[in-house]
């Protein structure tokens, strides 16, 4: 019996939200001492299938990850972006399918899209670090589309945090084909914390989910870290319509 696969109409989704990637051969880029605020939240299992590409399987139970990253140093200057992802499995590997990303620096948004396929749009993203809480917020055309806070900050080791690799649905300008691009950054941690999550606002429609398939259930955890992030060379791409076991192609060797 075939296992559960995603049911996302990748073509329709890609027509709306995928960005153009300029080939799959890019150089790594380091983001020094980036701040990462990460929320994991259970979502409705059956509905989550509609936000999971057909190449992938839902995790059991389904969950979403909401991330805000503030990069104070980069070749494009400082930037902040927020993204909403649905956790999946590509064969046996955990992966996050990124619905949309919003970045407050147009040049960074363009670079991240063209080189790594981030489905990125310019928007106002912020991270505010206070002693009692850390807040992540994304605003689009004056409307808050994401607002989350982490309270009761508690120290961990960077080894305790596991981030999942991203899958970006992007259109390759070299052949015009829609592809899932796997981005598996390396992290060197300087600080790691976990806290109590509160998700105040998540505007489904703004994140591409106008039909309400991302239905929040139980909050799981929230973490905050400061880390050097290396956005790596692209190593694998996957056909969004084929089982990832068969539809994954190697692009570059691991560094």
């Amino acid at each position, binding site marked *: *019996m075939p*296992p559960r696969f995603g049911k996302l109409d990748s073509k329709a989704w890609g027509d709306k939200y995928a960005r153009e990637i300029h080939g799959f051969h890019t150089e790594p880029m380091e983001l020094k001492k980036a701040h990462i605020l990460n929320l*994991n939240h259970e979502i409705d299992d059956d509905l989550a299938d509609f936000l999971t590409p057909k190449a992938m399987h839902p995790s059991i139970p389904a*969950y979403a990850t909401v991330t805000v990253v503030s990069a104070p140093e980069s070749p494009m200057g400082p930037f902040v972006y927020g993204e909403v992802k649905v956790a999946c499995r590509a064969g*046996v*590997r955990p992966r996050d399918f990124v619905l949309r990303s919003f970045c407050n620096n147009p040049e960074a948004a363009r670079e991240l899209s063209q080189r790594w396929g981030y489905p990125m749009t310019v928007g106002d993203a912020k991270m505010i670090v206070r002693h009692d809480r850390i807040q992540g917020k994304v605003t689009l055309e004056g409307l808050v589309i994401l607002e989350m806070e982490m309270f009761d900050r508690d120290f961990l080791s960077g080894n*305790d945090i596991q981030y999942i690799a991203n899958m970006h649905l992007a259109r390759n300008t070299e052949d015009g084909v829609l592809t899932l691009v796997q981005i598996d950054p390396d992290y060197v941690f300087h600080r790691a914390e*976990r806290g109590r999550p509160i998700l105040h606002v998540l505007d489904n429609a703004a994140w591409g989910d106008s039909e309400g398939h991302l239905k929040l259930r*139980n909050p799981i955890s929230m973490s905050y870290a400061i880390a050097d992030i290396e956005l790596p060379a692209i190593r694998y791409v996957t056909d969004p319509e084929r089982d990832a076991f068969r539809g994954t192609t190697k692009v570059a060797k691991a560094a």
Partner: protein
Amino acid sequence: MKFGIFFEISVPRPWHHGVEKQVYDNCMEQVMLADELGFDHVWAVEHHFLEEYSHCSAPEIFLTACAAKTKRIRIGHGIVVCVPQFNPPVKIAERTATMDIISGGRLDVGTGRSATWTELGGFNVNPDETKKTWDEIVHCLPDMWTQERYGYQGRSWSMPVRTILPKPYQKPHPPLWVAVTSPGTEIDAAERGMGSLGLTFGTIKEQEIKVANYHKIIRNCEPVGKFVNEQISTVNFLYCHEDSEKAVKTGRRLFGTFNFLASQLLAAREAYPSKSYPSLGLLPSLRREASGPGDASGVPEGIAIGDPERVLQACKRWESAGVDRINFLLNAIETVPQEEVLQSLRTFAKYVMPHFQGEQHAAAAGGR
């Protein structure tokens, strides 16, 4: 070296009426055959909500039925999740004592704490607490089994003085084991004088280091029970067939299916950053090893898949690493037809087990 069988009880979709009964019936048939063939143990896990991967949420009932239908095979209730939201401690003491009575003193008790958010989240358990509650409960269990009256004021649970009944048939009580998945848990087992119930392979080299550590530390242990259970057990896949090509093809399908199912679950560490879960638990290690280097057949080193000679060599390697027992996983969502599973058990018993009969590894004798 002793051999056992180990059940997750995985059930394939679609879950039409009768499919779970068929899988349970198949498992029971395997247990009855293993008993006849001279296997030493049958273990059944406790898992909840792990769709397809494990429909074994009430292993004590399955294992009680096993005890009633067999004569000599020992009954491994493990692991029992020692977290009060899953199992109130008194209930663990009561039901294990009852199982020991019904089995005529054939019970072993494996203890653990669950490694998936799928389960911990389902019972509203804080993952930071599970190691502490496990430790508290394993220290209480032997007293609940052996003292006529028992009361407790603790951190994660408490009770006024009552008489906990019945008492186990084995005296002073059944052997206690710890599920070893996270790195260093074998040290927890040794420090408490408990058997190390390995649920990951690691490499054989890694295992040798763990075994040496375990035996060194257990010499100075403070046993939680009334005796020290100095034994090391590990888990493996089994598919044994005279035709090597057929064995490898079927066996690879077995471990590939198992690993796929396991990877769909949500490990505690993936979802909830915590010092309490330094590894992803059983499943990724099984995956790693089952996709690691192997011989020309493509079967990883140490996996008991192949013709009898290859399976014999794999078991000998584990024995030389100091492992006292191997528990075999026989199937995953019925990917191997039942008749082939039974034949694999018979082939193993006929050609491989005799090479270990009469051998008495120093530690395999059990308690001291």
